[in-house]
């Protein structure tokens, strides 16, 4: 049986409570060997790409640096360039923010990465905008939330102009005639809009892919429009069947108005997995992993992010707080993506209460229920089936897998699930092309 091809990517475990750092098998989150291990495992399994998230300020809660999760990560471009030396085919995708950077610099870094990896670079354009993160940047004065996608759009448009400022045929390097460049104006550009007023000469010749593959991660209406207009793939958090199908239909439905077809934007949700010899083993292991991911303290801290107040006096094994969340600017937790998800905290708290009452759950158990559900739990056969089913049902085009263990968290998946997907004819057994665009089946640049 064959069908729609599944796309798979590997997310390096990092700064979030998905990552179980206390496991004896957990390695370093910083040492290069860990990155090499995960990237090579993903490449051995013929994944489309290796993926790095980004955060530009250490998270804080209650005025202190958050210390319960993994803290610290390397620089995206530097790690990806080094990984290009120890891998051959796998795509190397990095999250780079469009608010705290400048197009000329980012464009030359991505064009350089694309050259140095022979066409494997990918850019997840994110738009976190907050002044808290902005305090790490000399330029200060960051964006109102409402402008984050205006800047992102103009940033990407500007970067694209820079990528396109070399056509790819300029360098002739004719030693006899003494002509290095066929075009004296190679790289010339001039761009003016609300956010950027720049001109000059771009200094990186056209890269193997022309430009990096563009990913988008952001869930608002504006984010979805941005993806529909410009991205090659979208990294979503909607990994379940119903939510996935709704999201998939929504974003693919937005493409036509930009003159694009549904196959020009892949939908790749984040997904976690727990494997076992049998489904029952996996279920048991999954329960253990959840308890490691959500300790009593983690549950309290998570609830504080919603309640926007100090809950340290509450018992994680007791009931939910009886007071309502503090509405308004979140002063308790800073630099956390989860905070931005709680757009109506009182409504969310009421949902949590209903859940607690219905299933008779403690605070910690509620947090375990509502956060980071494991998408795929079971034997290799079960997980392969689940993944394929979701892809064939248009809940996604594949998944960005988030292992909970560094760096060996993908090993078993690579060895057991991937061969089963290959047997079904829905996942490649060899790389057919050399570039990330090839792996994603994106065809030539528009």
């Amino acid at each position: 049986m064959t069908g729609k091809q599944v796309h798979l990517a590997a997310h390096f475990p990092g700064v979030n409570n998905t990552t179980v750092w206390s496991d004896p098998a957990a390695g370093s989150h910083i040492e290069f060997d860990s990155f090499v291990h995960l990237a090579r495992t993903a490449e051995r399994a013929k994944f489309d790409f290796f993926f790095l998230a980004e955060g530009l300020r250490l998270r804080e809660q209650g005025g202190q640096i958050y210390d319960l999760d993994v803290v610290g990560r390397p620089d995206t471009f530097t790690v990806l360039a080094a990984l290009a030396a120890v891998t051959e085919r796998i795509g190397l995708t990095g999250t780079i923010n469009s608010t705290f950077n400048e197009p000329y610099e980012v464009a030359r870094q991505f064009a350089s990465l694309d050259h140095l990896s022979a066409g494997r670079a990918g850019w997840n354009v994110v738009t976190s905008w907050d002044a808290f993160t902005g305090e790490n940047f000399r330029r200060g004065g960051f964006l109102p939330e409402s402008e984050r996608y205006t800047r992102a759009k103009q940033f990407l448009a500007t970067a694209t102009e820079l990528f396109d400022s070399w056509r790819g045929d300029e360098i002739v390097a004719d030693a006899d005639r003494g002509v290095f460049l066929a075009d004296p104006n190679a790289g010339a550009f001039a761009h003016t809009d609300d956010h950027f007023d720049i001109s000059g000469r771009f200094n990186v010749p056209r890269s193997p892919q022309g430009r990096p593959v563009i990913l988008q991660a952001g869930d608002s209406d504006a984010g979805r429009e941005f993806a529909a207009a410009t991205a090659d793939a979208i990294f979503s958090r909607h990994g379940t069947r119903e939510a996935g199908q709704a999201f998939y239909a929504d974003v693919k439905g937005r493409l036509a108005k930009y003159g694009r077809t549904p196959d020009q934007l892949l939908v790749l949700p984040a997904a976690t997995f727990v494997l076992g010899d049998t489904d029952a083993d996996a279920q048991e292991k999954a329960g253990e992993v959840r308890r490691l991911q959500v300790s009593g303290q983690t549950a309290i801290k998570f609830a504080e992010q919603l309640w926007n107040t100090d809950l340290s006096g509450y018992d994680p094994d007791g009931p939910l707080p009886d007071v309502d969340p503090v509405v308004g600017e979140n002063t308790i937790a800073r630099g956390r993506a989860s905070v931005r998800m709680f757009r109506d905290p009182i409504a969310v708290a009421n949902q949590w209460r209903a859940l607690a009452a219905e299933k008779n759950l403690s605070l910690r158990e509620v947090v375990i229920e509502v956060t980071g559900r494991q998408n795929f739990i079971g034997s290799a056969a079960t997980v392969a089936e689940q993944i394929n089913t979701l892809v064939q049902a248009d809940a996604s085009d594949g998944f960005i897998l988030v292992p909970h263990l560094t760096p060996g968290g993908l090993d078993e998946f690579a060895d057991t699930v991937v061969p089963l997907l290959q047997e079904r004819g829905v996942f490649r057994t060899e790389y057919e092309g050399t570039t990330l665009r090839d792996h994603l089946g994106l065809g030539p640049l528009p």
Partner: protein
Amino acid sequence: MSAPLHLAVALDGAGWHPAAWREPDARPTDLFTADYWAHLVREAEAGLVDLVTIEDAIGLQSDDFDAQDDRVDRVRGRLDAVLIAARVAPLTRHVGLVPTATVTHTEPFHVSKAIATLDYVSSGRGGVRVQVSGKAHEAAHFGRRTIPPFRYQDVLALNAGQAPELATLFSDLFDEAADYVEVLRRLWDSWEDDAEIRDAATGRFVDRDKLHYVDFAGRFFRVKGPSITPRPPQGQPPVAALAHATIPYRLAARSADVVFVTPSDVGAARAILAEVRAEQSAAGRGSETLHVFADVVVFLDESPRAAADRAARLDDRAGETFTSDALVFTGTPSGLADLLQEWHAAGISGFRLRPATVPHDLTAITRGLVPELQRRDLFRRGYEAPTLRGLLGLPRPANRYAEATS
């Protein structure tokens, strides 16, 4: 070996002569491939050099001092030097990797974590050369500030003690660079070495008392910190700067571990050394190691005649005589060894050799000059330290914040 000298090789395109790319052994169409850089850096490592630098700039190369030219007969285009350094790091084991970073238009937060990460991916061999951009056309690539155009003659006037407006501009740019380096260094120290505790008993991954806000506030910018990247293996990757005159000497004296200078002869070398050392004392760093490396462009062949002929042939092709900010040495590896020995005796601790063409002059360094220096007992016979700081004789520094709290 009494007083070994240090050697660096400066890599840039096909070499430092503008016609280098037209040499028969040049690979001009490979300049933008990883393989090209891996070959060069491995060759440098085979010569046991302390470090390679990788040139970079935030704009396209130009022969015009203060504007973008439209020449087609020279190498144009380059890759980001930090990425090149990272790309070759896993393919090498000993040589220090010192890319150039422009400090005028970039964020110290980004560059700090990039160099820290270079240090991780190279297991302690990372460094950075900080470079100021005073070019109006490069500022236009960012559009966030304007830098008034000035001519090369204006710089000469400045160095002669004239041109007061330019002195203000230059002082500001270099003061900003000094603040930038201060921020790089504070961010590298913003994590104590043992901040990651993974204490399962208390559920804490880090000891937050060992993470520090850098809270830098200066004339030009502020940065909060801490870094997102833990303290790099070397603690402080070495910082280098190229300097030709008093204002940049002052930056190096305040901020750098290595300064690349450009004396024309041994007398000039002595004068520069005296000035750098005086600035170093004035900056309160008299007791710290600040390496002074002399830059020399080299054309090396088996006879002085052959080297001169080759240089002339290259000049002929370029249509003009090659000149440089640094001394241009044309001769044999043994003749160059004489010069290095003499300057070394005058107090220059190392040399950054700029091969006029690669691979020719690079292999002449690694296979000709290095054995000659070894015969004279002036250079190492094997890598004796696993880190760049180790090769440079710099101790691993204490963390400034740990000192403050203990």
